[in-house]
């Protein structure tokens, strides 16, 4: 802080100097240096708006104020009602945001400017203009203008619509209501977000969204605390505490009396860092940091209201600075395409050069002026050199089809068609939310087929963000909670197709029927938008055991361990109890807001009455032996809504899950105040525990403890919960515990393998000795060295613990996530998980969703330990946020990428949104791979925009990810079909279509080129110009588009069953340098054949130009269409109609056109159709032209079939054989199904095995620990 202040003084000095300079310049007489404020005020008052110099000066001052390292902000209130020029904070931007690109007036020029960034557009406009130059003798120059105009205007329309949507969204955000203090009204008045200014006082009510970055000055809480939920920023749904700036908070906060100056740093995008100090009028300075800042976009929870001083507004807020603007995405294929277009341009220029030179030499060789050399309109014959110069441009016009504008149009059309099919896929439809997949980006469908890296968010994307209590082990006995597991399993299992081949009719029917069955759970899901899954079905055996325990403990005054276990569950946490059922609702589209009034205030004074009320209800509901019917439906579901009056809000969802679990067994946490906890026993007795101390969770100890005085025994009891390794080493007194510890450890290992989050619970009775130590706890109130003190007390207290048991909590994965991840990995895609969560949680989830495998070598990278790695096949990497920050630095980047490249999967924990996009960018740029980012929260927006493809999951956490995404899906599992099937199809279709298009144009244009050798290179066409236009416009346009939309090389079943097929699209894919040039060569060959066979036939006959052109046209058309039919993999009705249709259309249209009397080619086709030579030419030319390609295809397919061809072979088998084959093949590869079933059956408790059993030891040894540096407890979770 002192440093900051020194900084501040320094820069303030500079600041004052700057201002005084201005002042002196303006009013030389007034050289007095007053306070900063006074100078500013005077300056502004003397500023005349009509003085241009003053305006410029004003702008410069504003610039300086904004650019200054430190900002001095004062309250706006004294200036309320004064003009704009008088406002002290007028240089700082307001809270209105504008994310639109264009304005109404400047739309046209800006958009055109934007569009001309596309090289092709410039080229086409240039060509269109060239058409108007008279010397090139273009045909109907106006016609050339039409296509480019259509393209430009369509794109402009699309852009305008997108910008309009952004505008509407901005408007919506800007006009959200908020409360600003007004001096006139002496109270907070309702205004809109855009009215918020820096220096205003804003009041935010509970569950409202913070409109700007606020320095917290006052809250309704008497301790000055305020809870916020930052899920919109970083995806974490737990509550975070924010404190008011100390020393400002008076019991009755009056904004008008706030006369301090807030000095804060320049806005930056670091969400976890903020520096500022408040300078009071008596020059006392109070420092404040991020812990006093409410960020825009956060939601205030559990606090009735909070009042803050606006420090940053609008685009300067941290959330907006974290929000990079959208990147214009261009698909990889399109980038490659542009390279090839450049090749084509070179080719075109070469051909034109050949034409121009040829014309020159031909002209030079002429001995005189022959009658066929037409002089210009003045009667002069143009000189050979000038004429050949003109001819160069004429050639460009003639051969312009080589770089086809129609290609760009066709690509757009194909993509629209592909998107139509993607959005109409029934497998990508989610019944629960009644949502289809949304394709927001229209131009990157084919990128879906080339993905090599997937970056996924964890919370809400892989998991449902619902913690479920799954299992527990009490005193060495396992209670598997089978029903609990079943109720979840049933939902997931039924959604999964029985034949492991989604995309079947069976599947869709199946999932439909399942709606009805699991309807109840959906109702719950919809009504209860809280993140925690509250439903726990008690284990019957344990329930019986507990009721026995209770009766004995009551009678004997001795606590049964089971009893203690549940008490520990209920007490040992920091869960806040609140009441709120009816108020829970969604208030806006953009943010999910949970209305929940805090009950603490109600509970504290009139505890008894509330108890009697609720206990009556609860008793009614709670049945010690709930009847579980066969269907597995728990009967109390229907009552749930009215009975669950209590609502637990916890910092971490696991805590809430534990409290709910305790509640299910009758141990109901009723209220919590700073010094007492009230729990109701299963018997209905209400126990009030005096809380003596809470040793909060920290990441070093990995545990937390609560010290309470037991109301019955009056003992001081310490309940501790924590990670197993941190607890196990603190256990005291072996003896009786030995077996319990061994069994529990075994259970813990099993839980961990299942991907459950494990926690151990212990108890310790302190008795009298506690009183002596109490004195030193009081010292804890002192601020200095607080953490050290907690550590010390903890060390003293948390010893010789008695193990009670362990729990396994499931961070419930979304439906078929492991299966999806496994399939994606088989498809050659590397999956990275970037999460803001703790490493422990992340690693657990990593195992649960099969991102990490048991046999993997997992490298943990954190700042604390060094890593030495050697190469094995399966490496996974776990990195935490701070390490990642180091790795992203310039000098380590290369090595990090090198390491990451070898890793099969990477888990990054504690990552900020900006880091997420940093990682994505790094991988994308360094490895030059296709990346896909999938996420659901506002914290994923950056990542989504940075990746080549951003996918938003429309889920619980608002719509911001969806808004920023290119595709919005509703389930993670949809990714599988989206990538493997649609991605593959879109890519192969479009790639083949583009290659075909290049071929088609070259083959067609080359015919014209070859003819130039016989017409003195004068850019003559042997076909009527209109017929040439028709050829591209009508005859050969529909088939490639249809091909690009509908062709299906391999069926969806096989693509899903054999994910390896996806690899064909990765890297270069089908559209590679090689395929492009092969098809170009083929086009050359075919054009040679198509030109010279007719030429050789006709050269001795009396044939006119257009009669000669007709068979060329026909042959070219037939060859091009037949070429396509070689490429078409599956002929549906549509294919037949379009192929035969375009042939028929070409025939009819040409016949119609050649009936035009004044046209050059009058009656030529009719004449040709009666000539046998025409047919003879057509047959032989087609055969010769297509022979090489056809033979090549046959050769390749029969000698060295590509995986795709093998897949097609597989497709031809009948359904049952196909399935058997896929299954067998999966088994051979070692698909996951087998292993998972092995894990999910819990070990029978009757045969307890010690942790030292050879099985376990073997595992530990063979999967060598790789951590060499200082021991990091976290490594032990999963460092094999």
């Amino acid at each position, binding site marked *: 802080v002192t440093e900051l202040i020194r900084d501040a003084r320094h820069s303030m000095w500079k600041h004052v100097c700057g201002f005084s300079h201005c002042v002196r310049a303006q009013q030389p007489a007034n050289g007095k240096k007053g306070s900063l404020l006074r100078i500013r005020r005077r300056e502004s008052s003397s500023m005349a708006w009509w003085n241009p110099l003053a305006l410029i000066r004003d702008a410069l001052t504003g610039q300086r104020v904004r650019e200054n390292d430190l900002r001095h902000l004062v309250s706006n209130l004294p200036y309320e009602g004064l003009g704009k020029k008088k406002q002290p904070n007028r240089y700082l931007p307001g809270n209105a945001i504008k994310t639109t690109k264009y304005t109404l007036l400047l739309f046209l020029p800006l958009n055109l400017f934007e569009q001309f960034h596309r090289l092709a557009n410039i080229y086409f406009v240039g060509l269109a203009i060239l058409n108007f130059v008279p010397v090139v003798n273009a045909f109907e120059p106006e016609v050339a203008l039409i296509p480019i105009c259509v393209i430009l205007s369509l794109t402009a329309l699309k852009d305008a619509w997108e910008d309009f949507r952004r505008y509407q969204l901005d408007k919506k955000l800007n006009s959200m209501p908020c409360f600003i203090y007004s001096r006139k009204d002496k109270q907070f008045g309702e205004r809109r977000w855009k009215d918020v200014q820096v220096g205003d006082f804003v009041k935010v009510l509970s569950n409202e969204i913070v409109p700007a970055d606020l320095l917290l000055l006052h809250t309704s809480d008497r301790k000055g605390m305020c809870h916020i939920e930052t899920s919109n920023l970083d995806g974490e749904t737990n509550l975070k505490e924010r404190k008011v700036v100390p020393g400002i908070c008076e019991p009755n906060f009056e904004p008008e009396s706030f006369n301090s100056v807030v000095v804060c740093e320049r806005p930056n995008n670091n969400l976890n860092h903020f520096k500022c100090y408040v300078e009071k009028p008596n020059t006392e300075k109070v420092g404040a940091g991020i812990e006093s800042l409410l960020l825009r976009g956060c939601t205030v929870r559990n606090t009735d209201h909070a009042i803050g001083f606006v420090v940053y507004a609008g685009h300067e807020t941290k959330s907006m600075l974290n929000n990079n603007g959208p990147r214009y995405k261009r698909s990889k294929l399109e980038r490659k395409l542009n390279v090839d277009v450049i090749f084509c341009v070179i080719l075109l220029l070469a051909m034109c050069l050949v034409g121009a030179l040829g014309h020159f030499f031909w002209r030079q060789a002429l001995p005189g002026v*022959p009658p066929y050399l037409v002089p210009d309109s003045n009667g002069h014959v143009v000189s050979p050199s000038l004429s050949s110069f003109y001819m160069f441009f004429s050639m460009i016009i003639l051969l312009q089809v080589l770089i086809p504008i129609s290609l760009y149009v066709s690509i757009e059309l194909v993509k629209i068609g592909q998107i139509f099919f993607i959005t109409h896929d029934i497998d990508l439809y989610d019944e629960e939310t009644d949502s289809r997949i949304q394709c927001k980006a229209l131009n990157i469908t084919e990128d879906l087929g080339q993905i090599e890296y997937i970056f996924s968010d964890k919370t809400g994307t892989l998991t449902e963000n619902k913690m479920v209590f799954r299992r527990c082990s009490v005193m060495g006995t396992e209670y598997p909670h089978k029903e609990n597991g079943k109720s979840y399993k049933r939902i997931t299992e039924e959604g999964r197709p029985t034949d492991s081949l989604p995309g079947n009719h069976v599947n869709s029917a199946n999932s439909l029927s399942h709606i009805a069955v699991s309807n109840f759970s959906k109702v719950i899901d919809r009504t209860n938008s809280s993140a925690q899954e509250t439903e726990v079905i008690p284990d019957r055996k344990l329930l019986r055991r507990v009721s026995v325990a209770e009766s004995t403990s009551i009678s004997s005054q001795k606590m049964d361990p089971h009893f203690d276990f549940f008490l520990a569950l209920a007490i040992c946490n920091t869960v806040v109890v609140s009441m709120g059922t009816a108020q829970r609702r969604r208030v806006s589209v953009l943010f999910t807001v949970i209305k929940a009034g805090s009950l603490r205030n109600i509970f504290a004074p009139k505890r008894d009455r509330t108890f009697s009320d609720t206990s009556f209800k609860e008793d009614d509901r709670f049945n010690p032996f709930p009847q579980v019917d066969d269907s597995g439906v728990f009967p109390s579901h229907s009552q749930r809504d009215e009975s669950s009056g209590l609502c637990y809000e916890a910092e971490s969802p696991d805590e809430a899950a534990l409290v709910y679990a305790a509640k299910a067994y009758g141990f109901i946490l009723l209220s919590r105040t700073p010094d007492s906890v009230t729990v109701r026993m299963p018997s209905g007795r209400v126990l009030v525990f005096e809380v003596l101390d809470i040793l909060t969770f920290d990441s070093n100890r990995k545990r937390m403890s609560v010290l309470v005085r037991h109301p019955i025994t009056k003992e001081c009891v310490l309940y501790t919960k924590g990670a197993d390794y941190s607890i196990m080493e603190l256990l005291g007194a072996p003896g009786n515990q030995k077996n319990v510890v061994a069994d529990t450890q075994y259970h813990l290992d099993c839980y961990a393998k299942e991907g459950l989050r494990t926690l151990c619970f212990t108890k310790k009775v302190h008795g009298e000795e506690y009183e002596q130590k109490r004195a030193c706890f009081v010292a804890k109130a002192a601020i200095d060295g607080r953490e050290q003190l907690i550590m010390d007390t903890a060390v003293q207290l948390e010893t010789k613990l008695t193990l009670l048991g362990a729990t396994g909590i499931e961070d419930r994965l979304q439906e078929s996530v492991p299966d999806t991840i496994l399939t994606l990995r088989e498809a050659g895609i590397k999956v990275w998980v970037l999460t803001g969560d703790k490493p422990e949680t992340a690693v657990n989830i990593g195992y649960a969703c099969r991102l990490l495998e048991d046999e993997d070598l997992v490298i943990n990278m954190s700042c604390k330990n060094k890593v030495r790695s050697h190469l094995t096949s399966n490496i996974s990497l776990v990195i935490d946020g701070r390490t990642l920050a180091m790795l992203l630095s310039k000098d380590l980047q290369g090595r990090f990428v090198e390491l990451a490249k070898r890793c099969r999967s990477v888990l990054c924990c504690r990552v900020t949104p900006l880091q997420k996009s940093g990682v994505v960018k790094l991988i994308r740029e360094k490895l030059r791979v296709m990346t896909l980012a999938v996420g659901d929260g506002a914290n994923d927006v950056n990542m989504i925009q940075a990746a080549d493809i951003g996918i938003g999951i429309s889920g619980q956490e608002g719509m911001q990810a969806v808004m920023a995404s290119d595709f919005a899906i509703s389930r993670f599992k949809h990714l599988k079909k989206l990538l493997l099937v649609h991605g593959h199809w879109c890519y192969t279709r479009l790639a083949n279509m583009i290659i075909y298009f290049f071929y088609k144009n070259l083959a067609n244009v080359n015919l014209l080129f070859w003819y130039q050798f016989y017409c003195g290179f*004068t850019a003559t066409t042997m076909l009527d110009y209109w017929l040439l236009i028709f050829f591209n416009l009508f005859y050969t346009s529909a088939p490639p588009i249809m091909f690009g939309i509908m062709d299906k090389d391999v069926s969806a079943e096989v693509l899903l069953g054999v994910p390896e097929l996806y690899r064909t699209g990765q890297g270069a894919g089908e559209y590679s340098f090689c395929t492009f040039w092969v098809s170009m060569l083929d086009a050359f060959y075919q054009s040679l054949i198509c030109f010279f066979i007719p030429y050789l036939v006709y050269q001795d006959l009396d044939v006119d130009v257009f009669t000669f052109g007709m068979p060329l046209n026909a042959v070219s058309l037939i060859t091009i269409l037949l070429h396509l039919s070689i490429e078409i993999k599956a*002929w549906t009705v549509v294919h037949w109609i379009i192929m035969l249709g375009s042939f028929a259309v070409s025939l009819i249209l040409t016949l119609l056109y050649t009936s035009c*009397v004044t046209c050059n080619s009058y009656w030529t086709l009719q004449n040709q159709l009666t000539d*046998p*030579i025409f047919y003879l030419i057509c047959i032989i030319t087609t055969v010769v032209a297509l022979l090489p390609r056809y033979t090549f295809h046959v050769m390749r397919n029969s000698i060295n079939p590509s995986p795709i061809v093998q897949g097609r072979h597989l497709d031809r088998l009948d359904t049952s054989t196909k399935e058997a084959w896929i299954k067998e093949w999966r088994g051979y590869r070692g698909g996951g199904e087998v292993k998972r079933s092995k894990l999910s059956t819990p070990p029978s408790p009757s045969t307890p095995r010690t942790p030292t059993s050879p099985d376990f030891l073997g595992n530990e040894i063979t999967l060598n620990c790789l951590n060499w540096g200082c021991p990091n407890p976290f490594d032990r979770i999963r460092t094999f």
Partner: protein
Amino acid sequence: MAKAKSGPLARRPDNSAFKQQRLPAWSPMLTANTVLPFFYFMAVICLLLGIWLLLTVQSVQEIRMDYTDSGACAHCHDLRKNVSNAALICTCKLYFHVDRPLKGDVFFYYGLQNFHQNLRRYMDSRDDAQMVGRKTNLKKPSSYCKPFATNDKGLPIAPCGAVANSIFNDSFKFQYLGSGSSDEPVPLWRKGISWYTDKNIKYRNPQMDNLSLAEVFHGTAPPPYWHRPVYELQTHDAINNGFINEDLIVWMREAAFPNFKKLYGILQRTNKPFESGLPKGNYSVEITYNFPVQYFRGRKQVVLTTLNWFGGPNKFLPIAYLITSCLVLLAAIGLTVVCKE
């Protein structure tokens, strides 16, 4: 259920075969086993066609005679080198021998070499609307005709443009120096040498309105290279004049290549000895030598051919078919060998 577009599943996509991309499809596999029969079939077809064509083409006969500067025509050639002699008439006579009688219809062509009728500006330099008889275009030729749209005096040129201007204006008189002493002129059909549609639809004289052809074309000028106006192209056949003059029509159909031949006439087989074609023997041809070729190193020819069902003496097509047949066969054998291993 899927049809009902309301309720909870309102946005559910149709489960139709088309939208779910499950349309029944025929997906042929291009492997050796499936396509080999097709290869062999194609080889056989090409072979048979080739043989047939080869046999047919054997019966076709052709006689080509270059008269540019050969024999008696040499002096005419030299004369035409000087533009100032354009008005002088020059005729020359050449002799040729027919070894085998040309049976059936005999077609008389004139051939030009190095004459590019297919240059872009040359081809465009015409007005089809004028030639179809539209009066407005007659008096106001299209701008494409420039600089041959109007003459020096500003009169519109009919027919306008470079194509008509550069018409081939040599004429031929063939004589059969038969077995006896009598030289018998070879009668030619000079009409019916153009396409029926050209003669009757594409090229029409302007509406006559009871006027004579000369009156209709009054106010127009002939093309600068022409010696005669368009309505006096054929002196002995009044109907074959104006835009429907068949020589003009044939010339106006621009040849595809710089070396071309155009039909001049067809043998009239009404009288002896030409009833079954041209008999064996000596012939002479008297050429009115007008067309200069020295500006473009051109050659002029007279060509006599008979035709078969697929056009003239075209040896290329049968050979191409035979070669193709061999290629397909080779490919098929290659496939068989490679894939059976």
